[in-house]
């Protein structure tokens, strides 16, 4: 795994979103964080989503929202559990070995 400095604000938001998302969607089995210095990047595993049609992870992007304690923009993808480690990650997300389970 690449060693990199991560802004504690980003890490805090990643962990906060992970807790919030698990509470909002109990079907989420695992949440993986791809550390980045300006954006929260999460891949969430749930078999409630359809299978990827093109073999790639496609995150949805959200702007920061200070009012909701989300100081940084975020990118969230939901994939099926058997797609973990198999799908192609977005450019600049690194590889699956960079994922940190939250």
């Amino acid at each position, binding site marked *: 795994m690449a060693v990199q400095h991560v802004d504690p604000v980003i890490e805090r938001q990643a962990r906060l*979103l992970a807790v*919030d*998302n698990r*509470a*909002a*969607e109990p079907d*989420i089995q695992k949440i993986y964080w791809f550390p980045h210095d300006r954006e929260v990047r999460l891949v*969430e595993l*749930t078999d*409630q*989503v*359809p299978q990827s*049609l*093109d073999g*790639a992870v*496609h*995150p*949805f*992007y*959200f*702007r920061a*929202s200070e*009012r*909701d304690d*989300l100081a940084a*923009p975020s*990118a*969230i*993808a*939901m994939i099926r559990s058997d797609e973990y480690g198999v799908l192609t990650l977005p450019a600049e997300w690194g590889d699956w070995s960079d994922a940190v389970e939250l």
Partner: protein
Amino acid sequence: MDWHDAFLEQARSDHAILQRLADPAVEYCHRLHYLQMVAEKLAKSMLTPPGSREAPPSSHSAFVRMLQVLKTRPEVRRQLGFEEAAQFKRYIDSLLALAARIEGLAPAQAGLIRPNPEYPWRDPPTVQIHAPARFDFPEFDPRDARLIKLHGLIRDLLRIAR
């Protein structure tokens, strides 16, 4: 303008046209066509980070996935007036099956063998050929409370999207 803003702008424009198609003199297929297109373009705007010069993926199946991600977002929940995450989840979950059927209206998914609001198709069991303009789309009754609710959600998402 970037890809995110361009897709959002076009989704809003398509929705403005959709509102004008409520005239009963207009064939129902056109309303469904625009509803499907608004949903797809809204989802594609969110598949592209603001400022991106890279086009979103060409898939037509982003709408349901977008709703599944949205139900975990605290700021979306708040902006749509839901206080509890569980209540918001139930609201979104109640619309997912219908959202999947709307998504399936895209000609790329329906092909020439299933009803879609844009191109004629041939029904395999009966071998009958249908024109969308002459088809009632019974699965999408415009008086169906869920369809009205889903349209309301799309309208609200267009309002809060930025």
